[in-house]
């Protein structure tokens, strides 16, 4: 099917099978490899992207569901490829990344929350992060770094 959607503000028109997972389209067709594929559907959250500002697991979304929608991936966090976005900088500074596999998904959660609520509390952040696993950091550094940057 012919499908058109915006990814990080750029319009994409693709001919694609409707049930293809969004993550495959992003990574294989659009070369946006920031969102990771970790578990294929067991809630690791590494594939998290925003569809119309709502965080979703891109491995679980059939691409036909983003027709006419706005998709944001970690690549769209900053317009300047040479510079980090404040959220990215905060995680890096706080040592809130280990292997980095979960980081793109965590960042998208941070972005979603920031858009929803300029000054979220730790409980709101923890609740929204509950669908993202991190094997390296123990979460606290991620939560603290994000809260600091959102203040």
């Amino acid at each position, binding site marked *: 099917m012919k499908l058109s959607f915006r990814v990080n503000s750029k319009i994409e028109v693709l001919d694609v*099978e*409707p049930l293809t997972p969004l993550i495959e389209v992003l990574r294989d067709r659009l070369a946006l490899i920031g969102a990771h594929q970790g578990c294929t559907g067991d809630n690791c959250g590494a594939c998290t992207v925003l569809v119309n500002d709502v*965080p979703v697991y891109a491995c*679980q979304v*059939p691409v036909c569901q983003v027709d006419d929608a706005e998709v944001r991936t970690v690549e769209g966090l900053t317009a300047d490829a040479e510079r980090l976005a404040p959220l990215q900088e905060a995680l890096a500074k706080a040592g809130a990344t280990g292997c980095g596999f979960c980081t793109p998904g965590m960042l998208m959660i941070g972005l979603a929350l920031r858009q929803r609520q300029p000054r979220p509390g730790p409980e709101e952040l923890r*609740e929204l992060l*509950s669908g993202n696993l991190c094997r390296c950091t123990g979460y606290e550094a991620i939560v603290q770094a994000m809260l600091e940057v959102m203040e």
Partner: protein
Amino acid sequence: MTFLHRPKSLKELLKTRHDLPDAMLLAGGAGIMKILHKLEEPPHDVIDLGGIPDLTGIQVGRFGTWLGAMTTLHELTDDVLVRKHHPCLSEACSHGPPQVRARVSIGGIASGRRFEVLPALMVLGARIEYRGQETPQRRDRVQDCLRKDAAKGEVVVAVHLPPHQDGDQTVFRRIQGGSGDVVIAGRLRVADGEVKEAGLVVGTPTQPGLHIAAVEEALIGRPVSARPISLMEQSFVDLDPEGSVSSYARAASSRVLRSWLEHLS
């Protein structure tokens, strides 16, 4: 190759469903990938329920609550009136990853038989409304739907909840267990000092109906009474073929719920 159909009204949906009885339905889409993995080849036709206004919305009124089949778990947790009138359902819908709750629909839950939300729907006396072009409209109790599949060509269009009644108390608890979480939903209606209704439903991901003593222990930290286990075992009924949703006999429900509510207050 898969063809996507996008009906724009309920009438169009029922016609498409009737013409393509083997088509796969796409609601929130959260369960689709798991279903696809089990198929040998992708479906020929998919019907997207996403653009049908007749399947969306929440209406709370004097005669009960109407939940359009496409209402998401997230919307059910967020809705002020659902939270006020059916806190047990709202609580049941608040568990699970936000990325999934934003997409899973109540129609998908009713058809997918997920153990998390069904116990709450059951104790609230919910009915599932099915529509088909050639079958009469029907509203079945959730417990009756667990043992049979929808007729070919039918769709879940809504879930109905009876109105909250004076003296109603409901509770919902999710407990992390070794082999997966267990959810417990209960409803007790006491009027004039008498128990008028008592319902206790337990849902587990895998294991067959939980022992009532284990339920009590999970809720209150100890079994409510020291009755022999063999007697207690007789007080539950498995509601689905896998035995993952069980309901307890009224006397047992009433006893456990009263102690539970006392304990909570």
